């Protein structure tokens, strides 16, 4: 049950929203989508769900295209949050679950379990408009997963939540993954993707600029971060061979370097110049990669 996108392109008139995107999303994995606003994430999701037809290319899941006959296997949390404001949580969830092919009794049973899990069992008979935004988001998350989908698509699942709720939702998502759900999610927050996804793709203006396994991407990136805390000025390192970027901090400097060897040379260079409190070589963060590939800061 692999989700495969092959040479997918979507044009709106003269505007190309997604340009020749080919991806393979392995089963039971969590796949991260990164990209600035307008990069084509939501359009890609809508094409995967069959809401929009691709202008070119094909999208298949387990060899077959996804359409309304498979909608009971798919869960979707759209970026734009929304539920019926006037309906009670129970009526709402049961209605949406039944549209995904679930029986009413099963939907009610699952809803109780989920509400317990999110520690809000008292919301069952409340109208959605009475709930806070964060809690509405929990309810909508339940609507997306209640029918135990095999493929779950989450468009910005954590945006607008407080840290406690983010943790709660993250746990729920990880538990779903453990149970064998293939999850595709997009986020603005690099660290969410970094923490949770084995595979990821960075979209820029509809094109995949980075794509692959997280570890591979980091290794292929080559550059590393070097953090030095020292009592003397590190100004001179700016022109040191192999240093890409320097950023002075209150206690020293943060450098981006081309590889481990550069760190060795720098260490040799600064030893004896004074007291060094910290000298740490770190893996590049996803944010560094994103900035490098997309060209400008996003977060």
């Amino acid at each position, binding site marked *: 049950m692999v989700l495969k996108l092959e040479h997918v392109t979507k*044009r*709106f*008139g003269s505007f190309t929203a997604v340009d020749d995107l080919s991806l393979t999303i392995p089963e039971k994995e969590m796949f991260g989508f990164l990209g600035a606003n307008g990069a084509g994430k939501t359009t890609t999701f*809508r094409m995967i*769900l069959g*809401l*929009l*037809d691709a*202008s*070119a290319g094909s999208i298949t899941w387990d060899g077959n295209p996804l359409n*309304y006959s498979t*909608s009971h296997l*798919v869960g*979707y949390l*759209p970026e*734009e*949050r*929304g*539920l*019926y*404001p006037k*309906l009670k949580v129970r009526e709402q969830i049961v*209605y*949406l679950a*039944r*549209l*995904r*092919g679930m029986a009413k009794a099963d939907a009610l049973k699952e809803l109780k379990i989920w509400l317990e899990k999110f520690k809000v069992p008292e919301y069952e008979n409340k109208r959605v408009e009475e709930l806070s935004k964060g809690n509405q988001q929990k309810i*909508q998350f339940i*609507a*997306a997963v209640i029918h135990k989908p095999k493929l779950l698509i989450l468009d910005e699942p954590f945006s607008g939540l407080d840290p406690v709720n983010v943790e709660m939702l993250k746990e729920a998502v990880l538990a779903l993954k453990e149970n064998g759900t293939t999850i595709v999610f997009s986020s603005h927050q690099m660290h969410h993707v970094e923490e949770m996804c084995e595979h990821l793709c960075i979209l820029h203006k509809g094109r995949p600029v980075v794509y692959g396994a997280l570890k591979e991407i980091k290794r292929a990136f080559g550059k590393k971060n070097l953090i030095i805390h020292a009592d003397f000025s590190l100004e001179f390192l700016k022109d040191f061979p192999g240093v890409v970027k320097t950023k002075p901090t209150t206690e020293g400097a943060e450098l981006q370097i081309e590889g481990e060897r550069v760190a060795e040379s720098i260490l040799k260079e600064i030893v004896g110049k004074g007291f060094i409190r910290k000298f740490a070589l770190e893996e590049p963060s996803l944010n560094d990669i994103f900035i490098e590939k997309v060209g400008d800061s996003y977060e």
Partner: protein
Amino acid sequence: MNSFWIILFHTYLNKLKSKSFIITTLMTVVIVLGLTNIQNIIDLFDKNGGKDSIAVLDETGQLYEPLKQQMKATNNDIKLTQYKGTEKEAEKAVEEGKYNGLILLRFNGEQLPEATYKAMSIADSSLFADLQIGLQQVKTMLAASKINLTPEQLQKLYEPVAFDKVALEKDAKTEEELNQARGLVYVLLFVIYFSVIMYASMIATEVATEKSSRVMEILISSVSPIKQMFAKIIGIGLLSMTQFAVFLIVGYYSLMSNMDSLKDGFFGVYGFGSIPTATIVYAVIFFILGYFLYATLAAFLGSLVSRIEDVQQMITPMTLLIVGGFMIAMFGLGKPDAAFITATSYIPFFTPMIMFLRVGMLTIPVWEAVLGIALLVATIIALAIFGARVYRGGVLMYGRSNSFKDIKQALELTKNE
């Protein structure tokens, strides 16, 4: 259960349970009950059992009896009493509410009757007119006897001329039938007009609500927008049927229990006693088709707006179409065989009202009605196909604009390059 039925019943039951639906239904039931009981209600408010009592101050001593005879013949609801006393006393009696009015009778120079009518207010013009007619007849009789006309001669003089209308067309409706048809068609036109406007805008609002609350994106990822659109249209259609069933049952029973008092009034004149079955069948057909035409239009217009506030603006052109059709139909009531009416009855957006007017008022060949219905059905199908495509793209579009340019954009979204 199939997702189509889930949406259909969800739409139907939710609207059925909604406060606004219950309130409008109850209010209309009250109006229906009021209309069918109108005679009882009028009687209830009339203190003297519906009779107006008039004091007559006859200076001549000769006019009271003939006037009383006349009034008995023309209007039994006016009770005349001869008042013995002065004018001042009579006026006082009127002020105290013993009488509705006071009439002073006297002769003029030519020994013909003359009168003055006095009442607290002279707003009741029908009472005054009735008295005037009675008095006029007394005067005519007196004047006739002065020039020695016999009552027979007088009758001849006033006999109306024999003037019959004959329609040459075979099966054409008689004058009486036309009057009946006019009343029935008038009422049914109103029903079609109001219900199409009401339920079509209900659909547009429903679609826009789902869109503006952003629940739409979850819905369309589970069920195809086209299925949703038709489930919604039929769900609301079912709702309208329910509402009409309530009105019809309440109206029918109330009418039956009041038949005696209503037979002579408005209902009798406009032929509600014997409603032709064909007219009712046509009314149902045109109501259903008209509903589908405008509901489909409303659904896709509703799918183009992002905020509920914009719904009314978006469906205004559609509402104007309905109003236009209704205006033409109103004009057509008086002149159903005008060429203009015949022509407009084939324009699908007007057909539900104007073709119905023609089949109800005229005896037109069946093929004409069938042709109108066929054109209407074809338009509905075309609109449904087109509308479904706009709907599919429209529900994904969010933005400030809500112009008809959006239709093009919505179609582009669903286009398969």
